[in-house]
């Protein structure tokens, strides 16, 4: 069973994504900030990372840099409500595999996660 790590500080979004992922048969590890997520990655693992860009403390792009810096190649899907082109290009160039703008459709999010998993396999 694939494990999805969700890093999102908005409680409702995080809860709803978690419910939907679990319904689709994924295991979910969820964090409200980057720091505990990075701590988890020191010992644990996952198949896909859903990473919000605006996070308290260390933000999404910084966390992504840290993840790739550690040599972790797990596919990362960035989530954000901002649609600045520079931000999108910047995160993709820093090692993100995909990008989804809020408000997104739950079906689209699930489809993109499946694509990332297929690509990984």
């Amino acid at each position, binding site marked *: 069973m694939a494990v999805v790590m969700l890093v999102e500080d*908005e409680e409702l979004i995080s809860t709803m994504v978690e419910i939907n992922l679990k319904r689709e048969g994924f295991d979910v590890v969820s964090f409200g900030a980057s720091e505990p997520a990075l701590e988890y990655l020191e010992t644990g693992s996952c198949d896909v990372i859903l990473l919000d860009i605006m996070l308290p403390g260390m933000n999404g792009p910084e966390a992504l840099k840290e993840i790739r810096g550690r040599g972790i190649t797990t596919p990362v899907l960035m989530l954000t409500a901002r649609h600045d082109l520079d931000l999108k290009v910047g995160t993709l160039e820093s090692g993100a595999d995909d990008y989804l703008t*809020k408000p997104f459709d739950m079906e689209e999010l699930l489809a993109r996660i499946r694509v990332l998993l297929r690509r990984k396999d």
Partner: protein
Amino acid sequence: MRALRGIRERLGATLGWTWTHRHHVLFGGSLFFLTLLMAWWTLFLKESVDRERADSQQILQLRIENYASVLGHQLVPPQPDVLDSEKNISLLACPDPPDPFTVQLSPHHPTWCLTPSELSISSMDRQYRLRNAMVFGEGALSFLLILVTGLMLYRLLDAEKRASQELQEIWSRVTHEIKTPITGIKALLQTLEKQELSPDELRPLLKLGMREVERQEKLAENLLIGQRLARGFYQLQTSRLELVAFLRNYLEHQVIRIPREQVSSNVGGFETLLVQADPNALRVILDNLVENSVKYSDKKLLLQVFIEELDGAVMIHLKDNGPGFEPSQSRKVFDAYKRLSAELPKGKQGTGMGLHISRRLAVEMGGELTAESAGVGFGATFTLTLRVARSDPGGSSDKEKK
């Protein structure tokens, strides 16, 4: 081949840089061209002044030669006084060796010569110096004018560019604030559409959904009030308001945002307090202050709400244990669209309008809103001061139209 590629790359980089900074290049180029034009014009005028001086000298010389010829043919010796005072020409004994500026009175008085008088030479020199100073002065002034105008224009363009970037950033923040609650609500509705949830599962989700709807509602309200205040037609309905009951009711409704045990208050210790306030504006101010504390709290939020009556005013203090700010920033926190991003936890979004609007509303009600903090990491205290209402029932309502 490598050298050629290097040149091509360098040329490409230069052209790329020029295109990226085309406005600056165009601006700087125009300024440079204008300065060159001004320098050329100054040199041209200087040349004219020099030519004019040479012409004057030549005319004087011709006049002297003419007089020398006339006087040289007269048998009577020349009268030095008349020449000096009337013609600006001096009569003197011819120098040996001959001077190029002197002309002999040939053929009858060859020992006498004529030369320009001291007065005419100094007058010509003074005129020449004056004209030169004028030309260079005009040139320097024009250069200074070009420089100042260029500098002012550059600053204007730069300010406009920064304002445009700031506006883009503000809209980006507002868009984020609008989209985030919508994302949660949309996800909730899409889930409910596809999935049966038990009442126990559903209840907390609906509570979260409700909180997001309220967040959206407050954002819309802030944007609307901000716009109306900026345009000067926000209508304030200030009247006598019983503050104790209002605050009790308000705090009771905050449990949706902050658990009861995290809020302490001395409101219960008061019987009644009458203030001059617009209940809607007061609610908006308190909402923004509470939202501010909730949003920027990086640990378990502890909020203290206490009131005091002092010298005909009532003060409502909201003290939190959040990140606080540098004491020097206590006025800046109220600037429109200002977020003390360097001091606040990163990644926290907001429109930057809440505190600005709150202070404007407090002032419109005849009160004040101030902020205090002992420094970053020491929490913040916001104090809303309201006027105590007059006790006579006749003055119970004083509506202000803005």
